[in-house]
């Protein structure tokens, strides 16, 4: 095992060992789009949407749901939405899961010239020919990337997808 990996394992291990003692009383919202529900079913009213990192006091547990209180409100939350420690995301602020990927930051001319600087452009063209692959320009690759980044999934659509598949909190 690498030295650095060992250290990580040790640090992570220390934190994991510490977690179970508190798992009963205190949990944190660990998923995007987590909802506090009026009852232990996804079809009940939504009491509140809880941001990642929200601390929860656990009042009880039934089946796959925790009864909790958060910010002075109480309700039920699906077990998959919580963790014993707040996730990294809530500590760092981060971006937005449902945000646009935008257009890529690659500068076509610079990437192309950087590659030719390494003398790779020509050899790649040859390699592509030899393998029977079409040779493409950097602009074509950039366009493919922009198409990938433009592929967007909305919150509502994702909910519908989970519901249709009876996944997680929509299982029953």
């Amino acid at each position, binding site marked *: 095992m690498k*030295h650095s990996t060992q250290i990580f394992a040790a640090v992570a291990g220390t934190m994991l060992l510490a977690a179970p003692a508190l798992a009963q009383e205190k949990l944190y919202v660990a998923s995007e789009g987590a909802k506090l529900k009026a009852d232990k079913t996804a079809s009940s009213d939504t009491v509140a949407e809880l941001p990642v990192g929200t601390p929860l006091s656990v009042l009880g547990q039934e089946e796959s749901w925790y009864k909790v209180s958060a910010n002075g409100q109480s309700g039920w939350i699906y077990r998959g939405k919580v963790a014993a420690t707040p996730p990294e995301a809530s500590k760092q602020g981060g971006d937005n899961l449902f945000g646009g990927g935008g257009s890529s930051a690659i500068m076509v001319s610079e990437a192309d010239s950087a590659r030719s600087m390494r003398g790779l452009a020509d050899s790649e063209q040859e390699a592509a020919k030899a393998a029977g692959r079409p040779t493409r320009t950097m602009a074509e690759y950039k366009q493919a990337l922009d198409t990938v980044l433009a592929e967007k999934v909305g919150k509502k659509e994702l909910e519908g997808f989970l519901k249709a598949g009876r996944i997680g909190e929509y299982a029953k």
Partner: protein
Amino acid sequence: MDRRKFILGLAAAAMPLALPGSVMAGFLDAIIDPNSKESKLLSGAKSVLSSSQQLDYKSERTIGERLAVEGFRRYGMPLQSKGIQHYVNLVGMAAATNSPRPNIPYRFVVVESDVQNAFACPGGIIFVTGALVKIMQTEAQLAGILSHEIGHVALRHALKSIQRTQFFSGVGQITAATMKGDKGTQFESMINDMQNVLFDKGLDQNMEYEADASALETAYRTGYNPAGLTETLQTLRTIESTSTKKGSWFSTHPPLPNRIARNQASMKKYPDAATLAVLADRFKSQSK
């Protein structure tokens, strides 16, 4: 930051959520003593943490986008079917919401390639080849593989693998200036190193095991049967002898029997796994 401040900072950050005061005091004593085992562990952690935390998300994403271009070049262009691309994004996003890093905009792409593989670019652009999707049979299996790749992104494995390259010395943020001149050459060389790791050499074995453990957890939390990942590994094992190795899952991941055994052992953490979503029919109709 000096060593003592770092240790105290780390301890303070961990304290409220980790240990009761009395235990914590003993732990603190141990790490403040520079010759203790704990202290040595943490001083090593310092260099790892500081180098992986230097980079902001935008810079991480820039590296990922550059690597994605190399992914198209190496493996193939995105499959033309809009249906499968959107489906893979829905499954991937469902898992990503419950991953250890749920707040970055992930994107998933199926590329035209006869080689079975999947890999993750820093920042959250995740590739899976058409050939790998073809050997899967259920949505839970797809969710397992995507969760494994999400795990690599969340744990910043690719970046950690190449953080010692020259490019990162003195770079906290990638800007137009860092893409030019000597730094520009170093940037390209760093991208080359990362390609070498992701497409040929593979990540460190322990990172793969870590991503597997993370994948089981993410799939389970989402509501998919976490056995899906292991099932795909088992299918890969049955076709291993007749498949292309270069640039494939076989050559870039640890031996399949080890991983299958480890994942099967971890299933005891998920006693109700068999009651969770599998979705063979939806997968069959959507993955075309």
